[in-house]
C-alpha cells in the first residue's frame, strides 16, 4: 500500500493524562487516544516521507510496527481526521453577528442554470447578508464571496460541539426538507430561522414538514415567509401565525433593469431565429414549463391570441415537447441567469399563470425590475409582489385539496386581461414605469438587513423567555358526594421549587392541566396540536391555549 507522507497536519495538540496519550484534532473537534508510536510519528510525519519515518524511529520500533501505525493514520485521514488543510477563515469583523447557514443536500451544481427559485433566493440572501454579518456556510458549493467556510457534518457530535462553541448569534436554515437539522433545536442556543420557499409541496409534503418544524421550533425561533399569502394559508389551522415573519425577497435591480426593448427583441430574435419577435407584441413565460406552472393555460392563451407571440424561457418543454404547439408559441430554450434580463426585456407582458401556491414569484419581480408589466392570479403570493403595478386576475381557489395546487385562472379571463392591456399603449407604458418603480422597493440588501434585524429581535426574545416557570400539575377525580368528573390542580410549586402563587393550588380543567404538564418537555406549538386533538374543536383548543399562556405570562 503506497503511503503518501509527508502529510499536512490539522491543528493538533498532543497531551498525556493518567499515563494515557491523546491527540486532539482542533480543526475537527475530536480527541483520539493514541499510543507512543503514533505520538512519535505525529512529531515527524509532516516533514518526512514513510521511509524516512521508518529510519528515524527504527531504533525504538520494528518496521512492521511503524508500517501498521502509518496505515492506521492513513485511515484516520480517510475519516477526515488529523491530516489535511486547516480551513482558513476569512477575517471576522468585530461587532457583527455570526450566522451559521448549514446545508446538507445539494440540489444543483451551478447557480447560473438553476430553475429553482428557492436556491436563487437563498443564495442571494446569504450573499447580501455577508455585508452585514459574518456568514458561515458548511459546504464549499455554498461558499459565496464574503462568507466563511466551516466544514461541519452536523450529524456528528464533534461538529455539533464546534457549532456550539463558536457561539453563533443565529442559524439560517435552507429548507424544511432538511430534517437532519431538526435536532439543532435541542442543542443550539441560538435562534433558528427557517424560510418557507414552498408553501405546500406535492400532496402537502411541505405542509407536513412545516408542521413538524412549527411544533419543534422554540419561542425564540421563527419562520420567514415572503408574502402574506403563506401566513393566510397557515393561519387557517395554526394558532400562532405570528410565528411567521414577513421578509419579502429582493431583486438585483442592476442586473434586472430596463433595456432598449427593440434592441432586446432583436437580440432574442437572432438567438431564436424568429424575426417576428421584432414586429409583434410578446407575452412572456419564464418558469418550468409544466402544467402546475400553468403551461397548459399559456398554450391555450397562445391559441386564443394568434396576433401575439408567446415566448417561453424554460429548462425544457417537458411533456409538451410531444404536443402540437401553436405556431405563435416560441420556445427560447434553457438560458443561463445572466441572459435572463435580455429575455425579460424582450417581453411586452409577463404572464405567470401558476396553479401552485407560489410564496412569492421571484420571476414576476425580475420582470417588473426590467420594466415589464406582469399579469398574475389573485390566489397566491405573486399578487403581493405586483401590488398596483400590474394586472391581478381573479382566479378560483381550490377549497378542498389544499395539499398541492392553490387555484386556477379561467383562460378567458386571462386572455381578456392580456388583450385589454396590449391594446392600451398608454396603460402599458404607465404600468411598465410603475413595475420598475415598485421593483426598486425590493432589494436583497433590504431583505438581508431585515433578516439581521430579525435575528437581533429573536436573540432579545431569547433572553426574555429563558426561564419559563412551569407549575406541577396533578389530576384526580372530582368528588361531590359521589364521583363526578375529572379535574386538574395547579400546585403552587414550579420546577425550580418556587411557590409564587397566593394559594396552594388552583383547580383547572383537564385540558389546561395536560397543556401545562406537556410544556415541561414540549413546545407550545406541540401542545397546540395535542389540544386540537383532545378538544376536537379548534376554537376550544385555542381558548385553552390562551388561558395557559395567560397563566404562564402572569408569573415573570
Amino acid at each position, binding site marked *: 500500500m503506497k503511503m503518501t507522507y509527508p502529510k499536512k497536519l490539522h491543528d493538533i495538540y498532543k497531551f498525556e493524562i493518567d499515563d494515557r496519550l491523546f491527540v486532539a484534532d482542533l480543526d475537527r473537534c475530536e480527541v483520539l487516544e493514541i499510543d507512543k508510536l503514533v505520538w512519535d510519528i505525529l512529531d515527524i510525519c509532516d516533514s518526512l516521507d514513510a521511509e524516512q519515518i521508518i529510519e528515524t524511529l527504527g531504533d525504538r520500533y520494528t518496521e512492521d510496527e511503524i508500517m501498521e501505525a502509518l496505515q492506521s493514520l492513513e485511515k484516520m485521514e480517510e475519516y477526515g481526521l488529523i491530516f489535511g488543510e486547516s480551513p482558513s477563515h476569512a477575517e471576522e469583523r468585530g461587532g457583527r453577528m455570526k450566522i451559521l447557514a448549514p446545508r446538507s443536500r445539494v440540489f444543483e451544481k451551478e447557480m447560473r442554470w438553476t430553475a429553482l427559485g428557492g436556491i436563487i433566493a437563498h443564495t442571494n440572501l446569504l450573499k447580501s447578508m455577508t455585508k452585514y454579518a459574518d456568514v458561515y456556510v458548511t459546504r464549499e458549493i455554498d461558499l459565496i464571496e464574503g462568507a466563511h467556510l466551516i466544514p461541519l457534518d452536523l450529524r456528528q457530535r464533534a461538529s455539533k460541539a464546534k457549532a456550539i462553541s463558536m457561539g453563533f448569534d443565529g442559524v439560517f436554515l435552507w429548507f424544511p426538507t432538511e430534517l437532519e437539522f431538526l435536532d439543532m433545536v435541542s442543542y443550539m442556543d441560538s435562534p433558528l430561522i427557517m424560510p418557507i420557499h414552498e408553501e405546500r409541496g406535492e400532496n402537502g409534503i411541505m405542509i407536513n414538514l412545516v408542521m413538524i418544524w412549527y411544533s419543534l421550533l422554540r419561542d425564540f425561533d421563527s419562520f420567514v415567509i415572503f408574502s402574506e399569502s403563506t401566513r393566510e394559508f397557515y393561519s387557517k389551522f395554526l394558532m400562532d401565525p405570528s410565528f411567521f415573519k414577513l421578509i419579502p425577497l429582493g431583486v438585483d435591480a442592476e442586473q434586472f433593469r430596463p433595456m432598449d426593448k427593440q434592441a432586446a427583441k432583436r437580440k432574442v430574435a437572432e438567438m431564436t431565429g424568429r424575426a417576428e419577435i421584432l414586429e409583434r407584441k410578446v407575452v412572456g413565460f419564464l418558469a418550468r414549463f409544466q402544467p402546475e406552472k400553468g403551461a397548459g393555460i399559456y398554450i391555450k392563451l397562445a391559441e386564443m391570441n394568434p396576433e401575439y407571440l408567446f415566448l417561453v424561457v424554460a429548462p425544457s418543454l417537458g411533456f409538451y415537447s410531444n404536443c402540437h404547439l401553436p405556431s405563435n408559441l416560441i420556445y427560447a430554450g434553457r438560458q443561463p441567469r445572466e441572459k435572463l434580463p435580455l429575455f425579460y426585456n424582450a417581453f411586452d407582458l409577463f404572464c405567470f399563470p401558476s396553479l401552485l401556491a407560489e410564496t412569492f414569484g421571484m420571476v414576476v419581480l425580475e420582470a417588473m425590475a426590467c420594466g415589464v408589466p406582469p399579469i398574475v392570479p389573485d390566489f397566491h403570493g405573486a399578487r403581493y409582489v405586483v401590488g398596483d403595478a400590474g394586472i391581478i386576475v381573479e382566479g378560483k381557489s381550490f377549497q378542498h385539496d389544499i395539499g398541492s395546487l392553490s387555484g386556477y385562472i379561467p383562460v378567458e379571463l386571462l386572455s381578456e386581461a392580456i388583450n385589454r392591456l396590449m391594446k392600451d399603449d398608454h396603460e402599458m407604458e404607465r404600468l411598465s414605469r410603475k413595475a420598475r418603480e415598485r421593483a426598486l422597493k425590493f432589494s436583497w440588501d433590504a431583505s438581508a438587513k431585515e433578516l439581521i434585524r430579525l435575528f437581533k429581535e429573536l436573540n432579545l426574545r431569547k433572553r426574555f423567555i429563558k426561564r419559563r416557570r412551569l407549575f406541577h400539575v396533578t389530576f384526580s377525580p372530582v368528588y361531590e358526594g*359521589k364521583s363526578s368528573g375529572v379535574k386538574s390542580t395547579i400546585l403552587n410549586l414550579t420546577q425550580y421549587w418556587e411557590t409564587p402563587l397566593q394559594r396552594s393550588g388552583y383547580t383547572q380543567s383537564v385540558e389546561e392541566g395536560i397543556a401545562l404538564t406537556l410544556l415541561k418537555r414540549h413546545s407550545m406549538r406541540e401542545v397546540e396540536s395535542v389540544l386540537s386533538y383532545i378538544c376536537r374543536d379548534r376554537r376550544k383548543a385555542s381558548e385553552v391555549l390562551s388561558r395557559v399562556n395567560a397563566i404562564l405570562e402572569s408569573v415573570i
Partner: protein
Amino acid sequence: MMIRFPQQLNKIFKFERGGKIYAADLTVGCVVEMDEVTSYALELSERFDTSEVIKRLEERYGKEKALDSIGKLASFARIGMFFRGERRRVEGAGQQKLFISPVFLRSLNRFSFVTRVDLYRLITSLAELINLSMGVYREHTDRLDELNSKGIETVLIEEDKRISPAALISEEYSGILSLSMSFVEEAPFNLIGKPVINLAYSDRSLGDKLIQSAIDLLFMLRPWAVLCCDASWTANAILKFAPKPEGVRVIPPGVDHDLFKPMDKHSAKMNISLALNNHLFAELPIVIILSGLPLNEEASFVRKICRVNNDIAFLVLDPSPSDYLQAKPNNVEFFPIRDAHDYDMLPLIFNSAELLIFPATIGISSSLVFSGMACGLPVIAIGDQERPPELDEAGIFIKAACSNGDTMIVPVREVSDKLRSLLRKPEEMDHLRSSSLRTARRFSWELTAREIIKLFEELRKSMGSELQFKGYPIVFAYKYNRWRGEIESKAFQLPRFKEKPMEYALASELLKDHTPSEVELILTYISGDEIKAKEIVDEILSIASDET
C-alpha cells in the same frame, strides 16, 4: 435552555493553546474551544447547585455572560458532552430521622379536638422512639418550647415564595410525615423524592373534604409514599371513589390506657347525670351514639331511635352542631368535645354507658371507638362494607344498605332491636365487655408509632425502583391528510418520524411526570374508554419495566 447542577462530569482535560482555552471530553472523544466564563462554569458545575453556579458567575462576569455560559453548557449536555447526569443526593445511612411538615401546625384549627389530641399523642410517641423534627413557621414559635420539651426538634422555616419549604429539607431526614390532611398544601413534600406517610384520620370537622383531599393525593402518590388511614372504614370510604388499594394502609391510633379504663359504672352514671343535668341518665341505661354521619342522616337516626326507645338514654358524642333536633326528647343529650375538660370527661362517659353505637364510615373517630372499648364498652358497628377487622371478635356488626351506592342508610329498626335484645342479656353483655377490653389492649400509641416507623422502612426500600422511560423522543405535530384534505394532530417518534397512536404517545409523555393512575384517568377522560386506557398504560409500563 437550562441545566440543573450539580452534575457528574465525564473525564475532562483542559488545556491552553495559542491563547485559547480548550476542553477535551475524553469519555466521548470531543474537544472544543471554550471561553473563560464557560470554562469556569464547567468547573463549578460539579460542586454547586444551579443557583449557586449562576451567582458565582454573575459576581465575576456579570449576568449576561453568566447566563450565556450556562446556556452553552446546557447545549453541550444535550449532545452528550461533559456531563453524565445529575448528582443524586445520597440517602443518609444510620438512624432514621423523620420530618413533620410545617403545614401541620397551620392546619390544627381545622381538626376536631379529638383529632388534635390523637395527633399530639402520635407525635410524642414517635419522638420517644425516633429522631423527630417538625418544621415550624414563624407564627408558631410560641410552640417551640412545648415541642422541644417533648423531644421534638423544631426547625424554624421562614416563608419565602422563592423556595418551597420542601426543597429545604436536608438530606439527613429519611422520611416525611404529612399530618395536615390537606393534599394541596402537602403536595410539594410528596414530590421531593423522600418516603412520605400522609395521614388520613376520620374527623367530623373535615367531612367530605377529606375524601376529595385523599382522592387527589392517591392519584398523585409516588411508589415511595402512602396514605395511612386510622381505620378500615376511613380507608373503605376513600377507596370507594379512588380504588387504589396499593397506596392505602391502615394503622389504627392508640389508646391512653391510663385514662381510658374500667371504673365503677354507678358512680360514673351519677356523675354524668349531674353533668348533663338530666336525671334520666341516672335512671335509664345509657347508650352512646358516635356522631359522624351527614347531618340529615344523623338527625333522622337519632330522632327515630330515641322515639322508639324512650326507656333508654342516648348520649350523642361529639356532634356538630350540637343541637340539631327540634323539640329534643328528654332521653337524648348531646356532648360536644371542644376542649381538654370535655375530653377528660370521656372516661366517665364511656364507663357510664352500656353500649356504644357507631356508623363505620368516614367522619367517625376510631380513637373514640377504641377508647370506649378500653373502658369495657361493648360496641355495635353499622357499616355498608365488611365487618371492621379492627374490632376482631369484639362487638356486633350490622350491615347497612346504601342509597345510590353512596350514602349509608342506617337500619334503625334492626339497630334498635339489637340493642334492646342485648340489654336484656346480661351474660352476653359481660362477654362483649370482656371482648372489648381484650381487643382494646391491642391498641397503644407506642404500637402505632412503631407501625409508622416500620412503614417508613418499607417505603425506603421501595425507593430507587422507579421506572425509567427511555426511548426516542416523541413530537406532536399537525399533519395534512391528503385523502380527507384535512389537517390532523399526530404523534411521531424521532428520529425517523414513525407515527404513533396519539393516546399511546400522550401516555408515554405524561408518564414521565405523572403516576399511572393519573394517566389512566386522563386517557379515560379523552377517549371515554377506561379499559383501553388501562391497556395502554400497562403496555407502556411493561416496556419501561423491561428497559429499566
